[in-house]
């Protein structure tokens, strides 16, 4: 048995429970009966529900925000460089490939320079092909 309809005031006092899905089936039936008997109450409830549905929408849309670089910058500044000192480690930390590529490129350039300098005798050895 679902019992008799709530009075309008009883139903109004249960708006939150209905919106939170906390009424039992029988209470919900009494609530619905109260709305059916009082169009003004029904309209009031529907307006409240519409406002809350729209408010909930605010939490489902993605927001465009990127806080990471600002957080890293502030942490580095406030820690006197103790944290986020290495700028290669900044940002996503999801691009180890890029850091590795830069490091390998730097090593390659240094290697080529070293080889060239050695061949040219700039490192203190005898320059090839020069008479003593």
């Amino acid at each position, binding site marked *: 048995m679902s019992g008799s309809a709530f009075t309008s005031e009883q139903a109004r006092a249960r708006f939150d429970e209905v919106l939170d899905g906390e009424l039992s089936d029988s209470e919900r039936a009494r609530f619905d009966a109260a709305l059916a008997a009082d169009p003004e109450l029904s309209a009031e409830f529907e307006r409240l529900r519409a406002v809350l549905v729209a408010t909930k929408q605010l939490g489902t849309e*993605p927001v*465009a*925000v990127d*806080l990471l670089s*600002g*957080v890293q910058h502030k942490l580095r500044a406030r820690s006197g460089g103790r*944290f986020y000192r290495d700028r290669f480690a900044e940002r996503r930390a999801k691009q180890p490939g890029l850091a590795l590529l830069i490091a390998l490129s730097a090593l390659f350039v240094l290697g080529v320079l070293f080889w060239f300098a050695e061949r040219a005798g700039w490192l203190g050895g005898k320059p090839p092909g020069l008479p003593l």
Partner: protein
Amino acid sequence: MLDAQERELIEKLKRRDEAAFNAFVLQYQERVFRLVLRMIGDRAEAEDLAQEVFISIFKAIEGFRGESQLSTWVYRVAANHCRNRIKYLTRRRRQLTEGYDESSEEHISGAQSQGRPEAPDQLMEARQTERVLQDGLLSLEEEQRELVVLREVEHLSYEEIMAITGLPEGTVKSRLHRARATLREFIERNEQGRGRKR
């Protein structure tokens, strides 16, 4: 209870592992920013404050004892920052126009920008709705606004809200009841006002 993945993340955060902290910021930035934005109503202020939330977490993570979900603790830190910032802003703005002015409308619009492409009229309507709702949120008392944001915008359970705010269930529900009614009245007044202008 914390799951294994969360425990591992917390351990890394406690060791000040920067890569783990980067991942943590990326994981939580949207939730923190949305909470702060809806509480403060100003995008630039909200970005600054959300960054401060993460800095506080970086500093205070050692104090996290795992008695709640990490997300609950993050929300608690964010809510505390919001309360403090609102007090500060209220003091600072006391001499200025009350409420939410045209410039803050500029700040807030565009907060939701990564959604689906929409027709211009739909976009306009969505922006208008968002603006009215944000005005409505800002018209609430800070304590009520916090509960509406946590419950309606962030979709948190009453248990989580009680853990974040430290309030008993009865207080949360009664404040939320008043807040919902006030928000509805605000929106209705706004609609009536717009109806008269047409």
